[in-house]
C-alpha cells in the first residue's frame, strides 16, 4: 500500500519505537531537548499519524476530482 507514496523520507516516517534506547527517557534527560511543541512520545505519534493521514486523504481526493472531471468532459 506504500508503493505510491513518495520515496522521500519525511520526519513523520521515523518510527520512535525503533530507537533501542530512548535517550529522552533516561534519568536526567529533558524531553523538550528532543521533542518540540510540548510533544510527548504519544502526542508526537498521533501528530505524525494525522500528518500522514491528512496528506493521503487529500491526495486521494485529488485523484477522484481528476477522475470526475475527466469523465464529465
Amino acid at each position, binding site marked *: 500500500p506504500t508503493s505510491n507514496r513518495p520515496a*522521500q523520507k519525511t520526519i513523520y516516517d521515523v518510527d520512535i519505537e525503533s530507537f533501542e534506547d530512548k535517550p529522552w527517557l533516561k534519568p536526567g534527560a529533558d524531553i523538550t531537548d528532543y521533542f*518540540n511543541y*510540548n510533544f510527548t512520545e504519544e502526542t508526537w505519534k498521533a501528530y505524525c499519524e494525522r500528518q500522514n493521514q491528512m496528506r493521503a486523504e487529500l491526495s486521494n481526493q485529488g485523484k477522484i476530482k481528476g477522475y470526475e472531471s475527466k469523465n464529465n468532459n
Partner: protein
Amino acid sequence: MYLHVNPEEKVRECPWYSRGFCKHGPKCRHKHIKKLLCENYYLGFCPEGPKCKYGHPKYDLPKEEPEIKLDLQ
C-alpha cells in the same frame, strides 16, 4: 544596511527539531528553538504565515544542508 552576523545566528535552526523531533537532543549541533504549535496551522491554514509567533512545522525535510541564505536585496 550591512548584514551583521551574530555568532549565535551562524548556528542554523535544527530542521528536525523545528518539525517536532530531533534524535540528537541536547547533543545536536543545530539550534533547538522551542516553540508552541500554531493551532490554526495544525488545523490546516494560518493567515499569519511566516509572521506567526507560533510554530508552523514543515513536512518535507531539506534535502541537504542548504547554504546560509543572505538576503541582500
